């Protein structure tokens, strides 16, 4: 039973990573850039949600929606101001700009919301479900997280496969020039991708802080790095890959904490990543691109 307990908390943590990783992967797929500021968008989303729920006493769902809207706008603004002017620049320049944006968001949060940790109220209450006569307890947060992850996954798959916008996204990620010739508005498509990614980050922020309730301006950075790892793990640019990578990473992290060592759990997660990349250099579900000579 303890094994099952760990497995469920692993899947729950993994679902959060997966939601963040989906944002990374979508942005990477279309803009071919590692958006290091993504982790800080999570933090902004969590703060907005926190203020909406605790200060203005809005219902949690409204709080999350508000956080999503703010983060989507933030994502579009960041893309327009910082990344769009660099679209033809070398990838390292864009990477450093993303890091600059990350510093900016963290320090702006530090000024706006002070470094004092905030206790985040759970968006779904503290209830839990007991199974097998109390041997297996699953908190509501866990259930909601997993359900949200699955729902987002289905939504994204349907969206990218069958809507016009989703098709435009896939076209842009394959060849921007050709997409433009076919009459696709590339700029708008990229903006919408950033908006979706940032909206997902807001949901992830609310769920993350419901499970781990301390909120500080650097809350987003470590989950951000882990989710980035998860995206690479599953094969960056692939949506099912991000889900698989996130879930595996969460489960491995919880198992490493439970059975091997709490302090070395991060090291073990990263070691697994290295081994996977050695066997499959493009991640679990990534496409291996043949080089043409």
């Amino acid at each position, binding site marked *: 039973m303890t094994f099952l307990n760990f497995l469920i908390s692993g899947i729950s943590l993994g679902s959060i990573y997966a939601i963040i990783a989906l944002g990374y992967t979508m942005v990477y797929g279309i803009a071919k850039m590692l958006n290091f500021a993504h982790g800080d968008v999570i933090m902004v989303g969590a703060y907005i949600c926190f203020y909406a729920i605790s200060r203005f006493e809005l219902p949690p769902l409204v709080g999350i929606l508000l956080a999503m809207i703010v983060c989507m706008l933030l994502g579009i603004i960041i893309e327009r101001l910082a990344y769009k002017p660099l679209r033809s620049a070398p990838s390292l320049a864009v990477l450093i700009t993303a890091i600059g*944006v990350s*510093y900016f968001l963290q320090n702006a949060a530090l000024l706006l919301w002070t470094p004092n940790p905030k206790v985040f109220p759970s968006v779904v209450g503290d209830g839990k479900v007991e199974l097998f006569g109390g041997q297996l307890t699953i908190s509501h947060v866990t259930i909601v997280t997993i359900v949200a992850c699955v729902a987002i996954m289905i939504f994204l798959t349907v969206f990218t496969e069958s809507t016009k916008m989703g098709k435009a996204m896939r076209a842009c990620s394959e060849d921007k020039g050709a997409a433009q010739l076919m009459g696709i508005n590339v700029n708008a498509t990229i903006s919408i991708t950033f908006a979706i990614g940032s909206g997902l980050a807001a949901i992830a922020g609310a769920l993350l802080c419901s499970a781990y309730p301390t909120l500080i301006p650097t809350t987003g950075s470590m989950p951000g790095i882990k989710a980035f*790892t998860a995206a690479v793990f599953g094969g960056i640019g692939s949506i099912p890959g991000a889900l698989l990578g996130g879930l595996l990473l969460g489960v491995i992290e919880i198992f490493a904490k439970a059975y091997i060592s709490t*302090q070395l759990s991060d090291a073990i997660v*990263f070691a697994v990543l290295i081994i996977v*990349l050695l066997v499959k*250099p*493009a991640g679990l579900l990534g496409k291996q691109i043949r080089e043409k000579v």
Partner: protein
Amino acid sequence: MKKIKWSKTTGKNTMTYGLVILAYVVLQLFGAAGLMSSSLKGMLIPICAYVAMAISLNLTVGVLGELSLGHAGFMSVGAFCGTSTAILLQNAVPSAPLRLAISLVMGALFAAVVGFLIGIPVLRLRGDYLAIVTLAFGEIIKSIFNNLYLGVDSHGLHVSLLSDRTNLAEGGSLIIGGPMGIGGIQKIATFTAGFVLIMVTLVVVFNLVNSRAGRAIMAIRDNRIAAESIGLNITKYKMMAFVTSAALAGAAGALFAMNYSTVVANKFDFNTSILVLVFVVLGGQGNMLGSIIAAAALTILPEALREYADYRMLVYAIILILVMLATNNPTLKSWLDRLKSGRRKAKEAI
């Protein structure tokens, strides 16, 4: 008499050496004349360490052309191994400069070994995947040093992981105390040592870049397939650049650590790796003088912005973004170029 060939690179390299020496002399004179503020004086050694870090990372990023996000890991290895050596030799080698030199060499050696071990898997990968694996190794190194215990007593060295099981005999002392890191370090690092380290780093990097091996490394960067087809051993040359870069970072880490009384593993995290990467990209990939200037300027910048107190890191972030936009945006760039050529034309007209 044989005429010495004065190529463009030699000129540029000489200028770099010259400027570093000039900066050293000027700063020493300022220090002697008492014109330097104490906060700047305290920053001289970290600046030297960061400059050496930036030059060494530029070897990986600029010359080899691979993105490394875990350079602070090598700095950490150098810092811990170098400082431990210094503590162990405290009685055996009474002369501080000699002890410092041995420690830096030991830091570099250990970092080189770790660099070699990491290089075997890392250099098989490409692009963003390589970057993420270096990030992973950086985090692993941090976790290990956070849980490493090293003690010394009359029986020799004792090492344990996770918890303190060194069981030291009486009179023994714990050198590395897990998350507490190394405490009670004698601050033997000096500005002169930092200057020497920068010069050594420059000599090593310039000589590597201007050698047959260096040209091979750059050929691999520019076109891997073409380089392979003319028979270059890709792994060997990549490894050469990577290990050299790691060793130099290790020496810089040892110098950095011995400027403080305590050193903890969390100091060398992902943010430190990123910080050094920012120096390299801002200074220009493959441009060592640029790295030096960027490292020095960006280390001083947060201090110089101190009067803005809370806003200084915000300003730092904005400056970073604006500089990247100004140097890489095609419209802004062409505008700047036009401005430059316009001025030149105006001069010619006069």
